[in-house]
Protein backbone atom coordinates (compact mmCIF):
# COMPACT_ATOMS: atom_id res chain seq x y z
CA UNK A 1 0.00 0.00 0.00
CA UNK A 2 1.36 3.45 -0.89
CA UNK A 3 2.33 5.50 2.16
CA UNK A 4 0.60 8.87 2.23
CA UNK A 5 3.05 11.72 2.75
CA UNK A 6 2.51 13.25 6.18
CA UNK A 7 3.33 16.88 6.94
CA UNK A 8 2.39 19.89 9.04
CA UNK A 9 -1.20 20.91 8.37
CA UNK A 10 -1.96 23.36 11.20
CA UNK A 11 -0.54 24.51 14.53
CA UNK A 12 -2.29 25.57 17.72
CA UNK A 13 -0.56 27.48 20.51
CA UNK A 14 -1.28 28.07 24.18
CA UNK A 15 0.55 30.82 26.04
CA UNK A 16 -0.37 31.26 29.72
CA UNK A 17 -1.68 34.68 30.65
CA UNK A 18 0.47 34.81 33.78
CA UNK A 19 3.88 36.32 33.21
CA UNK A 20 6.76 37.88 35.12
CA UNK A 21 8.71 40.95 34.08
CA UNK A 22 12.45 40.41 33.79
CA UNK A 23 13.03 44.14 34.13
CA UNK A 24 11.49 44.03 37.60
CA UNK A 25 14.09 41.44 38.60
CA UNK A 26 17.05 43.68 37.71
CA UNK A 27 18.17 44.42 41.23
CA UNK A 28 17.40 41.00 42.65
CA UNK A 29 19.48 39.25 39.99
CA UNK A 30 22.06 42.00 39.36
CA UNK A 31 21.40 42.44 35.64
CA UNK A 32 20.77 45.54 33.55
CA UNK A 33 18.21 46.42 30.88
CA UNK A 34 20.68 46.04 28.01
CA UNK A 35 21.48 42.48 29.09
CA UNK A 36 17.79 41.62 29.43
CA UNK A 37 16.71 43.12 26.10
CA UNK A 38 19.69 42.61 23.83
CA UNK A 39 21.43 39.49 25.08
CA UNK A 40 18.80 37.35 26.78
CA UNK A 41 16.17 38.96 24.56
CA UNK A 42 13.34 38.25 27.01
CA UNK A 43 11.28 41.01 28.62
CA UNK A 44 8.63 38.67 30.07
CA UNK A 45 8.66 35.00 31.00
CA UNK A 46 5.32 33.21 31.03
CA UNK A 47 4.32 30.93 33.90
CA UNK A 48 1.58 28.31 33.82
CA UNK A 49 -1.28 28.83 36.22
CA UNK A 50 -1.14 27.09 39.62
CA UNK A 51 -4.04 24.79 38.77
CA UNK A 52 -2.61 23.88 35.37
CA UNK A 53 -0.54 20.82 34.70
CA UNK A 54 1.33 19.85 31.55
CA UNK A 55 -1.68 17.94 30.20
CA UNK A 56 -3.94 20.96 30.73
CA UNK A 57 -1.58 23.10 28.66
CA UNK A 58 -1.82 20.51 25.88
CA UNK A 59 -5.61 20.57 26.04
CA UNK A 60 -5.59 24.36 25.68
CA UNK A 61 -3.22 24.20 22.72
CA UNK A 62 -5.56 21.65 21.17
CA UNK A 63 -8.47 24.05 21.54
CA UNK A 64 -6.56 26.62 19.49
CA UNK A 65 -5.72 23.94 16.92
CA UNK A 66 -9.33 22.80 16.74
CA UNK A 67 -10.48 26.38 16.19
CA UNK A 68 -8.06 26.76 13.29
CA UNK A 69 -8.72 23.39 11.68
CA UNK A 70 -12.17 22.09 12.71
CA UNK A 71 -10.36 19.11 14.20
CA UNK A 72 -12.31 17.02 16.70
CA UNK A 73 -10.63 14.69 19.23
CA UNK A 74 -12.35 11.60 17.84
CA UNK A 75 -10.57 12.19 14.52
CA UNK A 76 -7.14 11.56 16.01
CA UNK A 77 -5.30 8.34 15.22
CA UNK A 78 -2.14 9.37 17.03
CA UNK A 79 -1.36 11.73 19.94
CA UNK A 80 2.22 12.41 21.06
CA UNK A 81 3.49 14.74 23.79
CA UNK A 82 7.07 16.02 23.86
CA UNK A 83 7.91 16.82 27.47
CA UNK A 84 10.47 16.28 30.20
CA UNK A 85 8.18 17.83 32.82
CA UNK A 86 5.19 15.52 32.66
CA UNK A 87 2.12 15.38 34.85
CA UNK A 88 3.05 13.88 38.22
CA UNK A 89 5.96 11.44 37.99
CA UNK A 90 5.25 10.54 34.39
CA UNK A 91 3.08 7.51 35.20
CA UNK A 92 0.71 7.42 33.46
CA UNK A 93 2.32 9.14 30.52
CA UNK A 94 1.08 12.65 29.87
CA UNK A 95 -0.17 11.80 26.38
CA UNK A 96 -2.49 9.20 27.90
CA UNK A 97 -3.81 11.84 30.31
CA UNK A 98 -4.36 14.24 27.39
CA UNK A 99 -6.07 11.42 25.49
CA UNK A 100 -8.48 11.01 28.40
CA UNK A 101 -9.10 14.73 28.86
CA UNK A 102 -9.84 15.20 25.16
CA UNK A 103 -12.01 12.10 24.89
CA UNK A 104 -10.10 10.47 22.03
CA UNK A 105 -11.00 7.05 20.64
CA UNK A 106 -9.49 3.92 22.21
CA UNK A 107 -7.84 3.13 18.84
CA UNK A 108 -5.80 6.35 19.06
CA UNK A 109 -2.12 5.67 19.80
CA UNK A 110 -0.63 7.86 22.54
CA UNK A 111 2.95 8.10 23.75
CA UNK A 112 5.42 10.62 25.17
CA UNK A 113 8.82 11.63 23.84
CA UNK A 114 11.36 12.70 26.45
CA UNK A 115 13.33 15.45 24.75
CA UNK A 116 13.80 19.14 25.41
CA UNK A 117 14.76 21.86 23.00
CA UNK A 118 15.57 19.43 20.17
CA UNK A 119 12.24 17.70 20.77
CA UNK A 120 10.04 19.23 18.08
CA UNK A 121 12.44 18.33 15.27
CA UNK A 122 13.06 14.80 16.54
CA UNK A 123 9.34 14.30 17.12
CA UNK A 124 8.41 15.46 13.62
CA UNK A 125 10.54 12.67 12.21
CA UNK A 126 9.37 10.06 14.71
CA UNK A 127 5.65 10.78 14.53
CA UNK A 128 5.64 11.23 10.77
CA UNK A 129 7.35 7.87 10.28
CA UNK A 130 5.03 6.21 12.85
CA UNK A 131 1.97 7.55 11.08
CA UNK A 132 3.15 6.63 7.60
CA UNK A 133 4.20 3.12 8.72
CA UNK A 134 0.74 2.59 10.18
CA UNK A 135 -1.28 4.30 7.41
CA UNK A 136 -2.53 7.03 9.72
CA UNK A 137 -3.66 10.32 8.25
CA UNK A 138 -4.39 12.53 11.29
CA UNK A 139 -2.18 12.86 14.36
CA UNK A 140 -1.32 15.62 16.80
CA UNK A 141 2.15 16.34 18.07
CA UNK A 142 2.11 18.32 21.31
CA UNK A 143 4.98 20.20 22.90
CA UNK A 144 4.52 21.20 26.54
CA UNK A 145 7.52 21.49 28.85
CA UNK A 146 6.80 23.90 31.69
CA UNK A 147 10.23 24.55 33.19
CA UNK A 148 8.56 26.73 35.82
CA UNK A 149 8.15 23.43 37.69
CA UNK A 150 11.91 23.20 38.21
CA UNK A 151 13.33 26.75 38.13
CA UNK A 152 15.32 28.34 40.97
CA UNK A 153 13.91 31.88 41.29
CA UNK A 154 17.34 33.18 42.27
CA UNK A 155 19.29 31.61 39.39
CA UNK A 156 19.69 34.33 36.80
CA UNK A 157 21.12 31.81 34.34
CA UNK A 158 17.73 30.16 34.00
CA UNK A 159 14.91 32.17 35.55
CA UNK A 160 15.27 35.06 33.09
CA UNK A 161 15.25 32.71 30.15
CA UNK A 162 12.66 29.97 30.32
CA UNK A 163 8.93 30.48 29.82
CA UNK A 164 5.96 28.12 29.72
CA UNK A 165 3.90 27.45 26.60
CA UNK A 166 2.37 24.56 24.70
CA UNK A 167 1.73 23.80 21.03
CA UNK A 168 -0.32 21.28 19.09
CA UNK A 169 0.70 20.43 15.52
CA UNK A 170 -1.74 18.64 13.27
CA UNK A 171 0.15 16.18 11.11
CA UNK A 172 -1.86 14.95 8.18
CA UNK A 173 -1.78 13.90 4.57
CA UNK A 174 -3.32 17.27 3.64
CA UNK A 175 -0.35 19.39 4.73
CA UNK A 176 1.15 22.82 4.15
CA UNK A 177 4.76 22.02 5.06
CA UNK A 178 6.43 18.65 4.53
CA UNK A 179 9.78 17.57 5.99
CA UNK A 180 12.25 16.50 3.31
CA UNK A 181 15.42 15.79 5.30
CA UNK A 182 16.64 15.53 8.88
CA UNK A 183 19.91 15.48 10.79
CA UNK A 184 20.38 14.44 14.40
CA UNK A 185 23.07 14.65 17.05
CA UNK A 186 23.79 13.69 20.66
CA UNK A 187 26.62 14.35 23.10
CA UNK A 188 25.54 12.23 26.04
CA UNK A 189 28.83 12.54 27.89
CA UNK A 190 28.32 16.31 28.23
CA UNK A 191 24.75 16.06 29.51
CA UNK A 192 25.54 17.33 32.99
CA UNK A 193 25.90 20.91 31.74
CA UNK A 194 22.09 21.15 31.59
CA UNK A 195 20.23 18.91 33.97
CA UNK A 196 17.61 18.65 36.67
CA UNK A 197 19.41 18.08 39.97
CA UNK A 198 17.31 17.46 43.06
CA UNK A 199 14.26 18.83 41.29
CA UNK A 200 16.00 22.06 40.27
CA UNK A 201 17.28 23.01 36.83
CA UNK A 202 21.02 23.59 36.73
CA UNK A 203 22.71 25.01 33.63
CA UNK A 204 26.28 25.92 32.80
CA UNK A 205 25.36 28.73 30.43
CA UNK A 206 28.78 28.95 28.85
CA UNK A 207 29.02 25.24 28.06
CA UNK A 208 25.53 25.17 26.57
CA UNK A 209 26.30 28.31 24.57
CA UNK A 210 29.57 26.87 23.23
CA UNK A 211 27.91 23.59 22.27
CA UNK A 212 25.10 25.39 20.43
CA UNK A 213 27.43 27.86 18.70
CA UNK A 214 29.75 25.09 17.49
CA UNK A 215 27.45 22.22 16.61
CA UNK A 216 24.34 23.89 15.17
CA UNK A 217 26.09 25.74 12.30
CA UNK A 218 28.00 22.54 11.46
CA UNK A 219 24.83 20.47 11.34
CA UNK A 220 22.97 23.06 9.28
CA UNK A 221 25.84 23.22 6.80
CA UNK A 222 25.95 19.43 6.59
CA UNK A 223 22.18 19.18 6.07
CA UNK A 224 22.23 21.75 3.27
CA UNK A 225 25.07 19.91 1.54
CA UNK A 226 23.26 16.58 1.92
CA UNK A 227 20.26 18.12 0.13
CA UNK A 228 22.41 19.88 -2.48
CA UNK A 229 21.15 23.24 -1.26
CA UNK A 230 22.84 26.48 -0.34
CA UNK A 231 21.77 28.90 2.38
CA UNK A 232 20.35 31.11 -0.40
CA UNK A 233 17.75 28.40 -1.09
CA UNK A 234 16.31 28.72 2.42
CA UNK A 235 13.61 31.36 2.92
CA UNK A 236 13.67 31.19 6.71
CA UNK A 237 15.98 29.69 9.35
CA UNK A 238 13.80 28.93 12.36
CA UNK A 239 16.11 28.32 15.28
CA UNK A 240 15.10 27.14 18.71
CA UNK A 241 14.82 30.39 20.67
CA UNK A 242 17.48 29.57 23.25
CA UNK A 243 18.25 33.25 23.77
CA UNK A 244 18.62 36.24 21.49
CA UNK A 245 22.39 35.94 21.84
CA UNK A 246 22.65 32.33 20.70
CA UNK A 247 20.32 32.81 17.71
CA UNK A 248 22.37 35.81 16.58
CA UNK A 249 25.63 33.94 17.19
CA UNK A 250 24.51 30.98 15.07
CA UNK A 251 23.41 33.37 12.34
CA UNK A 252 26.72 35.21 12.45
CA UNK A 253 28.77 32.02 12.35
CA UNK A 254 26.82 30.85 9.31
CA UNK A 255 27.45 34.21 7.64
CA UNK A 256 23.78 34.75 6.72
CA UNK A 257 21.98 38.12 6.63
CA UNK A 258 18.39 38.30 7.79
CA UNK A 259 16.04 35.30 7.69
CA UNK A 260 16.55 34.41 11.36
CA UNK A 261 13.32 35.33 13.17
CA UNK A 262 13.35 36.13 16.86
CA UNK A 263 10.26 35.40 18.90
CA UNK A 264 10.98 35.16 22.59
CA UNK A 265 10.68 38.66 23.99
CA UNK A 266 7.12 38.28 25.30
CA UNK A 267 7.31 34.77 26.77
CA UNK A 268 10.91 33.46 26.89
CA UNK A 269 12.54 30.22 25.78
CA UNK A 270 9.61 27.81 25.66
CA UNK A 271 11.80 24.73 25.10
CA UNK A 272 10.31 22.43 22.42
CA UNK A 273 7.47 24.89 21.79
CA UNK A 274 9.69 27.66 20.45
CA UNK A 275 9.99 26.34 16.89
CA UNK A 276 6.30 25.52 16.30
CA UNK A 277 5.31 28.91 17.75
CA UNK A 278 7.26 30.61 14.97
CA UNK A 279 6.00 28.13 12.37
CA UNK A 280 2.42 29.01 13.30
CA UNK A 281 3.13 32.63 12.34
CA UNK A 282 4.30 31.71 8.83
CA UNK A 283 2.34 28.53 8.14
CA UNK A 284 -0.16 30.18 5.82
CA UNK A 285 2.23 32.50 4.02
CA UNK A 286 3.34 31.73 0.49
CA UNK A 287 6.59 33.68 0.92
CA UNK A 288 8.18 30.83 2.84
CA UNK A 289 8.68 27.99 0.40
CA UNK A 290 11.65 26.31 2.09
CA UNK A 291 12.31 26.49 5.81
CA UNK A 292 15.16 25.09 7.89
CA UNK A 293 14.38 24.37 11.54
CA UNK A 294 16.94 23.54 14.21
CA UNK A 295 16.47 22.61 17.85
CA UNK A 296 19.32 22.18 20.35
CA UNK A 297 19.80 21.85 24.08
CA UNK A 298 19.38 19.41 26.93
CA UNK A 299 20.98 16.02 26.35
CA UNK A 300 23.04 17.40 24.87
CA UNK A 301 20.84 16.88 21.86
CA UNK A 302 20.33 18.67 18.57
CA UNK A 303 18.41 18.16 15.35
CA UNK A 304 17.67 20.05 12.16
CA UNK A 305 15.23 19.58 9.32
CA UNK A 306 14.30 21.13 6.00
CA UNK A 307 10.61 21.73 5.39
CA UNK A 308 9.12 22.38 1.95
CA UNK A 309 5.83 24.09 1.31
CA UNK A 310 3.41 21.69 -0.35
CA UNK A 311 0.49 24.10 -0.72
CA UNK A 312 -0.65 27.46 0.62
CA UNK A 313 -4.14 26.32 1.55
CA UNK A 314 -5.34 22.94 2.63
CA UNK A 315 -8.07 21.28 0.65
CA UNK A 316 -9.83 19.69 3.61
CA UNK A 317 -11.12 20.92 6.95
Amino acid at each position, binding site marked *: MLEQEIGIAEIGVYIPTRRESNHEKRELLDV*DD*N*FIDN*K*VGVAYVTRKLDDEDTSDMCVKAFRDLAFRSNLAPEMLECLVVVTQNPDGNGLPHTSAIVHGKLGCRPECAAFDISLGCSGYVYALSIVRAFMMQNSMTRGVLFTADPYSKILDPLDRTTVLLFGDAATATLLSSDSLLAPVAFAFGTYGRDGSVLMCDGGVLKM*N*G*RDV*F*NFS*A*REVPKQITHLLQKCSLSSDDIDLFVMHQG*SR*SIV*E*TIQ*RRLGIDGRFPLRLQEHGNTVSSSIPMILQDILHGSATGTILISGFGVGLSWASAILRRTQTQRSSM
Partner: protein
Amino acid sequence: MINTSNVREALKKSGVSIDFDTLPEHASFQDHELDSMDMMNVFLEIEEAFGVKIPDDDIAQLDSIQSIISYLQENS
Protein backbone atom coordinates in the same frame (compact mmCIF):
# COMPACT_ATOMS: atom_id res chain seq x y z
CA MET B 1 51.33 32.53 16.68
CA ILE B 2 50.22 34.45 19.75
CA ASN B 3 50.53 38.19 19.31
CA THR B 4 48.40 41.27 19.76
CA SER B 5 47.37 41.38 16.14
CA ASN B 6 46.15 37.77 16.03
CA VAL B 7 44.30 38.11 19.32
CA ARG B 8 42.59 41.27 18.10
CA GLU B 9 41.56 39.50 14.86
CA ALA B 10 40.00 36.67 16.88
CA LEU B 11 38.20 39.13 19.15
CA LYS B 12 36.74 40.97 16.15
CA LYS B 13 35.06 37.75 15.01
CA SER B 14 33.12 37.58 18.29
CA GLY B 15 30.49 40.01 17.01
CA VAL B 16 30.74 42.08 20.19
CA SER B 17 30.00 45.75 19.54
CA ILE B 18 33.34 47.17 20.60
CA ASP B 19 36.24 48.32 18.42
CA PHE B 20 38.91 45.73 19.21
CA ASP B 21 41.30 47.42 16.76
CA THR B 22 41.60 50.51 18.96
CA LEU B 23 40.84 49.11 22.43
CA PRO B 24 44.01 49.56 24.55
CA GLU B 25 45.66 46.28 25.55
CA HIS B 26 45.19 46.86 29.26
CA ALA B 27 41.64 48.24 29.05
CA SER B 28 39.14 46.31 31.13
CA PHE B 29 36.41 44.57 29.14
CA GLN B 30 34.05 45.03 32.06
CA ASP B 31 34.72 48.76 32.14
CA HIS B 32 33.72 48.82 28.47
CA GLU B 33 30.40 47.18 29.39
CA LEU B 34 31.02 43.76 27.95
CA ASP B 35 28.62 41.43 29.76
CA SER B 36 28.68 37.69 30.39
CA MET B 37 27.15 36.79 27.03
CA ASP B 38 29.62 39.04 25.21
CA MET B 39 32.42 37.24 27.02
CA MET B 40 31.04 33.85 25.97
CA ASN B 41 31.41 34.95 22.36
CA VAL B 42 34.89 36.35 23.06
CA PHE B 43 36.21 33.17 24.66
CA LEU B 44 34.58 30.97 22.01
CA GLU B 45 36.57 32.75 19.30
CA ILE B 46 39.80 32.74 21.34
CA GLU B 47 39.49 29.00 22.03
CA GLU B 48 38.91 28.25 18.36
CA ALA B 49 41.58 30.58 17.01
CA PHE B 50 44.31 29.32 19.33
CA GLY B 51 43.22 25.73 19.98
CA VAL B 52 42.92 26.12 23.74
CA LYS B 53 40.23 25.21 26.22
CA ILE B 54 39.74 27.93 28.84
CA PRO B 55 38.24 26.50 32.06
CA ASP B 56 35.46 28.45 33.77
CA ASP B 57 37.71 29.07 36.78
CA ASP B 58 40.20 31.00 34.61
CA ILE B 59 37.63 33.30 33.04
CA ALA B 60 37.52 35.95 35.76
CA GLN B 61 41.18 36.88 35.33
CA LEU B 62 40.85 37.43 31.57
CA ASP B 63 39.46 40.94 31.49
CA SER B 64 41.75 42.60 28.92
CA ILE B 65 43.55 41.89 25.66
CA GLN B 66 46.87 41.76 27.50
CA SER B 67 45.61 39.27 30.06
CA ILE B 68 44.39 37.00 27.24
CA ILE B 69 47.78 37.22 25.49
CA SER B 70 49.62 36.35 28.69
CA TYR B 71 47.24 33.48 29.39
CA LEU B 72 47.65 32.05 25.91
CA GLN B 73 51.42 32.29 26.12
CA GLU B 74 51.40 30.43 29.43
CA ASN B 75 48.93 27.78 28.38
CA SER B 76 49.47 27.09 24.68
